[in-house]
């Protein structure tokens, strides 16, 4: 997540007096007997780059289409800038959408595509030309203005779609998996471009994606969805470091889960019995827990240190054997089978060069982490 100004952190969701731009109020959407969205409540604030993240079928696209006006809620209400959008058809909403397939009009040139929405607004004719030029400049498409969509490349088409959707300066821009068709390098470049444009224009963006890396890169806040419900809504850091459930922890990046019974030993510390005959894990949590409650301890691979000898400096140590190594150039991921049989992933940077590497397959190693390295989850 890019922060342009480290002093002023953009976080209107923490301000209790802030008025949201979008509010979903107990929204349910059913298609026949299938419930796509289940009693959903959500607030999205002006200026956010909000990501809806989840697997296929979780309802994220349905949510977006309700904002655009192509679906109507079965129950509940959606408020946009203080107005109930239910009676407003898609062509009258101050919302524009960038389609997954770009949906560029093949019979119109790039210029005409961008001007299309403007011609149907009340912008005076002479200003339309200027505005289109501005959009062409913003997306660096000036020299392609006269071309038709089939005469430009995939990346350029994507920029036309973006320019077209921003031309009317909407209050809200919806992006439906916009980067799916691009190759990895182009995708990364475009992600930063999108963030730039969003900040420059000050538009509120809502992006739908199944790519968690993408969501983490561009978004100010991420909503993880599953089966029509919001599981967690937080900043990328919040989602990653403090997931509220195993589902979220597992969805983003890699995670190791230890299941066990928790026992509180002090105000902030608990002990977790995860395996018979093994020393309990120690973790910091202030959550109220019932005695011997079943919990899931989640710790990310990069928080785990791999060493030949037990380090004894960290609260948690477990022994295991390296079963697999994934060498990724800058980092290596070690898959270690513990004595309990559980597989744990640990990740370390390759601080030393390959020939001088410490660990190899079949090595007996110790994995260790601190008591604040992970999160105790109750579901």
């Amino acid at each position: 997540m890019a922060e342009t100004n480290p002093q002023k952190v953009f976080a209107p969701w923490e301000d209790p007096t802030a008025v949201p731009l979008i509010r979903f109020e107990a929204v349910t959407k059913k298609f026949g007997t299938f419930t796509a969205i289940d009693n959903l409540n959500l607030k999205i604030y002006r200026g956010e780059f909000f990501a809806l993240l989840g697997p296929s079928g979780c309802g994220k696209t349905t949510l977006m289409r309700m904002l655009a006006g192509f679906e109507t809620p079965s129950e509940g209400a959606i408020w946009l800038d203080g107005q109930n959008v239910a009676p407003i058809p898609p062509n009258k909403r101050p919302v524009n959408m960038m389609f997954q397939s770009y949906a560029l009009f093949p019979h119109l040139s790039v210029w005409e595509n961008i001007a299309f929405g403007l011609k149907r607004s009340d912008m005076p004719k002479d200003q339309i030309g200027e505005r289109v030029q501005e959009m062409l400049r913003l997306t660096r498409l000036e020299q392609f203005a006269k071309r038709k969509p089939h005469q430009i490349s995939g990346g350029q088409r994507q920029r036309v779609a973006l320019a077209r959707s921003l031309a009317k300066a909407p209050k809200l821009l919806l992006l439906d998996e916009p980067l799916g068709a691009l190759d990895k390098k182009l995708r990364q470049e475009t992600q930063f471009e999108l963030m730039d444009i969003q900040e420059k224009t000050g538009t509120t963006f809502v992006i739908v994606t199944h790519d968690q890396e993408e969501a983490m890169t561009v978004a100010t806040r991420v909503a993880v969805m599953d089966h029509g419900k919001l599981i967690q809504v937080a900043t990328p850091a919040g989602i990653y470091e403090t997931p509220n459930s195993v589902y979220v922890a597992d969805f983003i990046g890699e995670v190791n889960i230890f299941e066990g019974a928790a026992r509180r030993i002090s105000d902030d510390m608990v002990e977790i019995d995860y395996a018979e005959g093994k020393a309990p894990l120690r973790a910091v949590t202030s959550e109220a827990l019932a005695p011997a409650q079943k919990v899931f301890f989640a710790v990310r691979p990069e928080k785990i240190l791999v060493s030949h000898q037990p380090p004894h400096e960290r609260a948690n140590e477990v022994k295991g054997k390296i079963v697999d190594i994934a060498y990724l150039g800058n980092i290596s991921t070690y898959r270690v089978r513990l004595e309990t049989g559980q597989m744990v992933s640990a990740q370390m940077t390759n601080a030393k060069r390959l020939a001088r590497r410490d660990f190899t397959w079949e090595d007996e190693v110790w994995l260790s982490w601190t008591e604040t390295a992970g999160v105790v989850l109750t579901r």
Partner: protein
Amino acid sequence: MNRKLSWFNVTSLTLGFAFLYLPMVILIFYSFNASKLVTVWAGFSTRWYVALFHDQQFLDAAWVTLRVGVMSSTLATVLGTMAAYVLVRGGRFTGRTVFSGMIYAPLVMPEVITGLSLLLLFIAIGIDRGIFTIVLAHTTFAMCYVSVVVSSRLMTFDRSLEEAALDLGCSAFDAFRSVTLPIIFPAVISGWLLAFTLSLDDLVIASFASGPSSTTLPIKIFSAVRLGVNPEINALSTIMISIVTLGVITTSLISKNAIRRQREEEQAAASQ
């Protein structure tokens, strides 16, 4: 995979197309025969063409047929496109099954039945039979063909284009006019041509629906050939076959060219 055809396939194609084309080729051949008889070749002659162009009845009938064709196919295209849009985008509405049935049934209904029923309708309402009634009749069955052609195109049409148009501020009608129609236009033209051909070619329904002063070309042709081979008809057939051949070849070449050019442009763009 071996794309060369087996001898069986080559034979099928050769025999098949020979079967399809030989009779027409023979017809063309004999239109230039100075003799009336099929069995005697009396030398190359264009006398039958001359006779044809001097036959006032034929020319009148051709003119009627042309006018009926243009009017009915244009009307049929409008109605058929509307029907196609309703079928594909209309969703559910009361009477949809009946509507769908009425659109598909004429495609397979024997013409004697449609012709008879329409004539009885005209008489019951009290309309005098003439060019107007033929146009009504042709429009009715042609619109079903147009609707099949256009709805088939509409079904493959990318709906997100219509949604994008709505999203950018179009009303439903505006979206149709500015986005859908320009893109499906080739299918609409196809439909028009199909309706036109069907109208030009129709004998049975026109026989029921026409009046004394509104003889169409097919009716005239039919009464001429009931008695056997007619050399003027050979000439007329050759002319009609030539026009169709020219038309089909031209459209083939145009569309092949357009596709090729589009593909080249796409490739050029992708390699940028």
